[in-house]
């Protein structure tokens, strides 16, 4: 098989490889992607600092993502003081509520006492809103900020302390949780379903707040003798609502998507390689696999047209050959045209009016007839027989013969459309679904991938079927036998009257190079 014909398939594989590559790159990034983003709340940023004496300074930034003016309610956890909104001191009725008019963003800051408790084995920071969402990182954002819609939003967060060595923390209420303990903060990112509330409990080393109170000031807080007890009891009471975020978490969804796309791509690679190898192996066969039964190769193995035999055999074996010459000799052999020798090599070829042939022969005759008129008589001398149109006749005849070979199931497309086109489409669609529709590459591949596949199929061409391979082997054997006849080698076109059918096939099998040269286009 011509190596150039493999290039389109390789290009297709390279193009499709971009999908798993992108998926793996995405899987390696700790970003989150979510559907149904909430109109009116583009994101929330929460942060807090733990002081050595156990106070907390909290900042919450609500990014509305629009210019709408909203009357927003603020609900504070217990022990909140120094309430400010957008930097301005704000009244807090009952110490727990506030009202503010907000636009674009709303920044809520306050300090909190009572939520940091010191034990012998560490410090617990309590933002557990499992039972009471007012005690969470913030209460239901969608509910109190004057947002009328429903949807999801993203929460970025960071808890700062002087010492976070060996710190553990658990987050509740977030999907796709990403965490990191870096630069003096426990940082996290996740999707807040329904833009509701989120909880956190952190177990910090004693050095984080060595002077913190030893008794929790949070009403109805879970208590214990040690930080470990409080930690375990809180997670148990939450009944799975908390996710231990201490260990860096592998994003399962993106990794699964990348794995799936990689598997699909590898399967496609294997299938294409298999098809190309099979095609190359078949065409590279110089001799039949099975021993030639010489008794069976003394006559044409089947009634295939010479042009179809030319497609099957190609350039295999010694000797120049011509499908066009063989087609003309076949016409002369059955008397449709006349080839009269002027000498041993030169001849006069006469196409009588009304001469007809099969689809292969018509391709050749139409070029030789004056103005293509069937009713005209054409008398030509050669060699050479062909002028400038010879090459196009050769191509046209090859196309017709290839189609006939496909119809006869002797040939097939090397890369079949029913595998390659759906596979390209499915990979694009899977990447598209996996990306939530946000990947431009996935969109492009879904639309363009099948087209690239079709082009690759067309450019990669055809290869033999099992039936075609068997046929080819028989014809190669017949060609080998014909080449054993030394006289055929030198027989010119006029010899058709003497040699008949063997000369026809010898011309296409490389056993009669003189006849092929005198009638052929080359």
């Amino acid at each position, binding site marked *: 098989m011509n190596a150039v014909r493999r290039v389109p398939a390789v290009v297709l594989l390279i193009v499709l490889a971009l999908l798993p590559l992108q998926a793996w790159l995405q899987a390696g990034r700790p*970003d989150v992607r979510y559907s149904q983003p909430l109109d009116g709340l583009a994101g929330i940023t929460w942060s807090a600092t733990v002081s050595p004496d156990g106070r907390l*300074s909290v900042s919450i930034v609500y990014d509305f993502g629009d210019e709408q003016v909203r009357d927003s309610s603020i609900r504070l956890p217990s022990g909140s003081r120094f309430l400010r909104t957008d930097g301005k*001191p704000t*009244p807090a009725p009952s110490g727990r509520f506030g*009202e503010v008019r907000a636009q674009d963003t709303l920044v809520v800051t306050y300090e909190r006492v009572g939520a940091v408790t010191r034990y012998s084995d560490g410090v617990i920071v309590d933002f557990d809103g499992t039972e009471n969402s007012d005690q969470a990182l913030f209460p239901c954002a969608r509910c109190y900020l004057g947002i009328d819609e429903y949807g999801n939003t993203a929460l970025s967060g960071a808890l700062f302390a002087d010492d976070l060595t060996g710190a553990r923390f658990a987050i509740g209420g977030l999907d796709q949780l990403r965490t990191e303990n870096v630069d003096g903060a426990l*940082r996290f990112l996740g999707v807040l379903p329904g833009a509701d509330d989120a909880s956190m409990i952190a177990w910090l080393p004693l050095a984080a707040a060595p002077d913190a109170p030893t008794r929790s000031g949070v009403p109805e807080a879970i208590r214990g003798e040690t930080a470990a007890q409080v930690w375990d009891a809180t997670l148990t009471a939450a009944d799975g609502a908390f996710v231990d975020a201490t260990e860096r978490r592998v994003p399962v969804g993106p990794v699964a998507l990348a794995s799936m796309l990689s598997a699909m791509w590898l399967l496609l690679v294997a299938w294409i390689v298999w098809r190309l190898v099979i095609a190359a192996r078949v065409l590279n066969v110089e001799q039949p696999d099975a021993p030639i039964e010489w008794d069976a190769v003394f006559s044409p193995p089947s009634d295939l047209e010479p042009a179809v035999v030319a497609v099957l055999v190609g350039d295999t074996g010694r000797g120049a050959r011509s499908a066009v010459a063989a087609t003309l000799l076949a016409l002369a052999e059955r008397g449709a045209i006349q080839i009269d020798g002027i000498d041993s090599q030169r001849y006069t070829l006469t196409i009588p009016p009304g001469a007809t042939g099969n689809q292969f022969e018509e391709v050749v005759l139409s070029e030789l007839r004056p103005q293509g008129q069937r009713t005209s008589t054409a008398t030509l001398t050669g060699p050479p027989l062909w002028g400038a149109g010879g090459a196009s006749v050769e191509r046209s005849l090859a196309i017709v013969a290839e189609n006939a070979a496909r119809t006869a199931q002797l040939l097939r497309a090397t890369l079949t459309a029913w595998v390659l086109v759906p596979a390209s489409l499915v990979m694009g669609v899977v990447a598209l679904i996996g990306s939530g529709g946000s990947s431009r590459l996935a969109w492009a591949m879904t639309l363009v991938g099948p087209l690239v596949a079709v082009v690759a199929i067309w450019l990669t061409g055809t290869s033999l079927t099992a039936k075609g391979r068997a046929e080819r082997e028989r014809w190669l054997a017949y060609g080998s036998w014909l080449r054993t006849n030394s006289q055929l080698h030198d027989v010119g076109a006029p010899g058709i009257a003497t040699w008949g059918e063997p000369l026809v096939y010898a011309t296409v099998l490389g056993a009669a190079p003189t006849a092929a040269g005198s009638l052929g286009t080359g």
Partner: protein
Amino acid sequence: MIWTRWGSIGLATLVLVGCNTATASFDDTREIEAPRFAPVPPAPAESPQLDALVVRDTAGFGAPGPNADPTLVGEALAALRAQVPRLERVSDLYFDDENVWLTIVEPNTRNLSRSVLWLRSSDLYIGEEDYVEEAEENSTYPISDVDVDAITALVDGLALRYPSVQIDLPRLDVGLSYDLGLSWRMDLVDGRGTLATIFADLDGTITAVDQGS
């Protein structure tokens, strides 16, 4: 035909999903800076949080009564210490312009408390012992937590800043501190009634303003 229909539905769904997603970057999380704590003001009445208080129009009506007098607290505590030398813990303390009220915990007996009234006329009345059910350590505080200078500076500063407002009944009671820990709580009353309730740390720094909803 059916493939065409389902294909169209699938494609439309993908388009809808594709147009209705958002992303958030962890890089933004790495940009978050640590929130800072409020600085201690130079004087209690200059607490920034006091800017949350909105004074209202009273149509010329002045303060309904005299301000509480924090100087009484020091005198009252001195008189009390003279009577109860081993006094350590208090559960409640409040005062007006004439009187100071306290609830003291009997030394060594957490379940017994006494009401105390001190009058400007220097009379000290100590009530009978009351039994307190399951008194919590958190509900009482050491008498040493009462910083007379701080509450004096706060009340006097407020009086200067809001001359038409009465500072009424400053009170130090854990149970009335809104989970803020031990805090001074006092009402600001103008000619129309209670204007706000403010809370202050023991050093006088105002931490919260409750001005109603």
